[in-house]
């Protein structure tokens, strides 16, 4: 599933300010609210659900990347955003390293296939060193968006 299908351009954040796991998650959910992808009224519940999922095991999957996610009945389709933390932060990642690249996903409870296909795309791109490097070097939301578009046109990975 291409990034353009589930990443909300308006919710992309190239400079996350938060320095804690919950802070980053809140900041990215706020970005989805501001972009009109999730309702303000559901903000707190979505953050809580994502934190609860983190308790089952960190979604920090290594290489400085984390994919915090949850299902939530308030969304009709999979929505997601990308955020970068310049300094990186402790996300209890599997490899013990700080996370600096974040993909946050909120999916409808009845669409596990879409979630899996989004994860498939994210992980395939992240295995590509140049994609990771360019993503880390992105200074603006437009830089990130352009990189995602290029990835969608199969200019990275296999």
């Amino acid at each position, binding site marked *: 599933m291409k990034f353009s299908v589930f990443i909300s351009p308006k919710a992309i954040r190239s400079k996350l300010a938060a320095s804690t796991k919950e802070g980053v998650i809140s900041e990215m959910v706020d970005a989805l609210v501001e972009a009109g992808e999730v309702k303000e009224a559901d903000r707190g519940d979505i953050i809580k659900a994502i934190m*609860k*999922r983190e308790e089952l*095991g960190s979604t920090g999957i*290594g290489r400085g990347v984390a994919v915090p996610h949850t299902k939530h009945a308030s969304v009709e389709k999979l929505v997601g955003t990308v955020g970068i933390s310049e300094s990186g932060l402790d996300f209890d990642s599997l490899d013990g390293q700080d996370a600096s690249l974040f993909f946050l996903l909120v999916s409808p409870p009845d669409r*596990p296939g879409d979630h*899996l296909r989004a994860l*498939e795309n994210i992980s395939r791109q992240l295995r590509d060193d140049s994609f990771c490097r360019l993503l880390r070097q992105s200074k603006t939301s437009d830089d990130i968006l352009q990189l995602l578009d290029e990835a969608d046109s199969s200019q990275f990975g296999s």
Partner: protein
Amino acid sequence: MKQTAVNSVLSIDSRMSSAIQHSLVVVKNAEGLHMRPADKLVRAASTFQCQIELERAGQVADCRSILSLLTLGATEGSELILRAQGPDAELAIRTICHLFENQFEETTAS
């Protein structure tokens, strides 16, 4: 001559220990091989010395890498070929088949 005999024993040993074990596994989790089962699989695979791979429709993933496993996009019902090569390959196959069989001990969906 003596040297040759030793070499041939060594080569038989190395052939035996590198025999590839394989099995067909099916993803039974309703949500497919998503992040949590993939994480469990990596943790299990990392306890063995052998190399362990999963193949889906010609695509091969390293069972020690969660990023690699997630690229398979293995939905419920996907049939995968599990392969292991190394000294403890047989036990690795048995252990991992069991994980697929009991749905990676997932009871609740989230």
